[in-house]
């Protein structure tokens, strides 16, 4: 559904997005991850037709965005990171204005606006948007992104200002969208959030896609030559010396450690603890969380 083909965007000769090749199938919830300045927002702006690529192309549903922006925009729902509205108008008026651009009749607009305000929990709020909290604006932004019942939804930092209830609503909405076959692209810094809703992830660094795939694939790739072993003991443990150990982090009382090794050395650690007369409370191979995966890729990229 979304295809980036050697997509490049340079500002004053400096590439913000560099030769990006990416394919997101229909119905996928794709998380675009990366540190500040990685090129996430620039990629999104090219995908929604707000800026033109310097070279390469991107396609939505097989239509090239730069060549046919209007056709593409009709298929897309977009919520920018810094979501904004007309402060002197109500949520209903703001959504109705947005709906007009998609050629909806007055009856359809009324129906759609009412449904969406209910979906994001803003039905019955009659005040103008100027009096809304950031979280309410974010909810309204999500509603506006869905006003045209899009085939592709692009969300830039969608949970940045949401309260826990709002986050739950957001997850529910995204899962519903995915269930209906809508492709969702989520750009976020909140890694745990991405791992909760996204079926696959792309990691951007310095404008380049350094890894992509589903979480398991990325996890395997990130940990294929390393194992993270967590150790908790009843007494302070000694510093382990083994050539397979890549790094080791100990707690202040030395009763907990997180050891990264080239291969599983948990037997050797157990033997060392036994020889020192220290009782282990826990000795286990840890599964990498999203943050570990991401940091491991960033670490590789900066080497």
């Amino acid at each position, binding site marked *: 559904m979304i295809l980036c083909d050697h997509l490049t965007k340079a*500002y004053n000769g400096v590439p913000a997005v560099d030769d990006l090749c990416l394919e997101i199938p229909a119905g996928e919830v794709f998380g675009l991850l990366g540190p500040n300045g990685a090129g996430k*927002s*620039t990629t999104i*702006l090219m995908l*929604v*037709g*707000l*800026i033109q690529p310097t070279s390469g192309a991107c396609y939505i549903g097989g239509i090239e965005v730069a060549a046919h*922006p*209007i*056709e593409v*925009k*009709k298929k*897309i729902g*977009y919520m*920018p990171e*810094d*979501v*904004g*509205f*007309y*402060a*002197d108008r109500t949520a209903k008026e703001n959504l109705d*204005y*947005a709906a*007009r*651009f*998609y*050629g909806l009749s007055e009856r359809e607009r009324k129906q759609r606006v009412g449904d969406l305000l209910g979906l994001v929990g803003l039905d019955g709020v009659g005040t103008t948007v100027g009096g809304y909290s950031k979280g309410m604006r974010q909810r309204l*932004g999500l509603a*506006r992104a869905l006003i045209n019942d899009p085939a592709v939804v692009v969300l830039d930092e969608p949970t940045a200002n949401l309260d826990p209830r709002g986050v739950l609503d957001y997850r529910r909405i995204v899962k519903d969208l995915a269930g209906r076959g809508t492709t969702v692209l989520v750009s976020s810094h909140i890694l745990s959030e991405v791992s909760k809703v996204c079926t696959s992830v792309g990691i951007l660094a310095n404008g380049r896609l350094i890894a992509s795939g589903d979480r398991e694939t990325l996890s395997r790739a990130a940990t294929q030559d390393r194992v993270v072993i967590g150790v908790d003991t009843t007494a302070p443990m000694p510093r382990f010396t083994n050539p397979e150990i890549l790094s080791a982090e100990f707690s202040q009382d030395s009763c907990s450690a997180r050891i990264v090794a080239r291969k599983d050395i948990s037997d050797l650690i157990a033997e060392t603890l036994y020889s020192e007369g220290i009782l282990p409370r826990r000795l286990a191979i840890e599964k990498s969380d999203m943050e570990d995966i991401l940091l491991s890729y960033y670490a590789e990229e900066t080497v």
Partner: protein
Amino acid sequence: MTATGLAIIAGKEFSDHLRSRRFHLLFGILVVIAAVGMITGVVQYTKDLSDYNSLQMLAESEDDPALAGNLAGLKPSILSAYSQMGMLIGGIGVVLGIAMGFDLMTREKESKSLKSLLAYPIFRDEVINGKALGGVGAIALAMGVVLVFSLAVVTILGIVPNLGELVRILIFGAVSFLLVFTFFALALLMSAVSKDSGNALLHSLIVMIVLTSFIPIFAYPPVYSAVFGDPPTPPGTSAYSYQQSSSIYTVTTTKVGVQASGGVIDPEELKEYERASREYMTQRQTITDIVTLVSPTGNYQTILSAASQPAGDSAPGPGNLLGALAYNIIALLAMPAAFFGLAWVRFMREDIR
């Protein structure tokens, strides 16, 4: 460009202007000023007409064809009342134009709604074209209301304009609209190039002051003399020279050709003086014309004073009037077009990040 997107944006902008307190306030002032100008002008017109009728009766009773001939081209016109109103509208209209345009683009940037707006299925030019169209509609409505209001005042006071006067009144309305639109387009340009509304307003006011006050300074005689030099001095010593001014005319009389000692001045010197004088006056007229053309308020006042000339047999018809004012009208059309063109290009090239 799709007509739908343009119409939606223009409709919203038009509605925003009509709902804006700023517009209500300035429009209210505009109407009050129009009323005051109209009533004052009509009172003056009635007095002038009464004086004219008395003089005409005098010419008829004394059977003085020379006086009757002179009076033929001096019949007061109701347009003199519009001239009075126009002078007042010139000032507030400029402010209205700037007030309506200075935050059109910056407001979208400040409210962070520009990205969302551009993500709708519309082309980028529809945004700026729609905003300009909505503004033009609101200005046209405001000026139309003022024009209808002025005609109502005139009619209530018992004056019915003839067809020629009606055409001139329409010309007055059209150029008043163009003046406000010029400053609206200037403010729109400043809104497109500035980062925030404060800067856009400041830049608009600076350019407005340059166009309406700074540039016309060069047409004033003392400034002109200081910049381009004094007029040539008559040969010999003038026997006497004086300048008499009234509110309408400035008459300068200089007696030349005779030296103080009583000797006769060389005719060649006199001829040279006349040539230099003509050259000086031609240059001065050119500079004055250029200054007038560059200044929208200068063009407005030139058109206004020509359109409100006294009626009568010698008054030019609408066609001749428009022909004589062609340069001023073109300048008054070209300036907003240039401002809007620059705003359009700037907005189309704007980097959205």
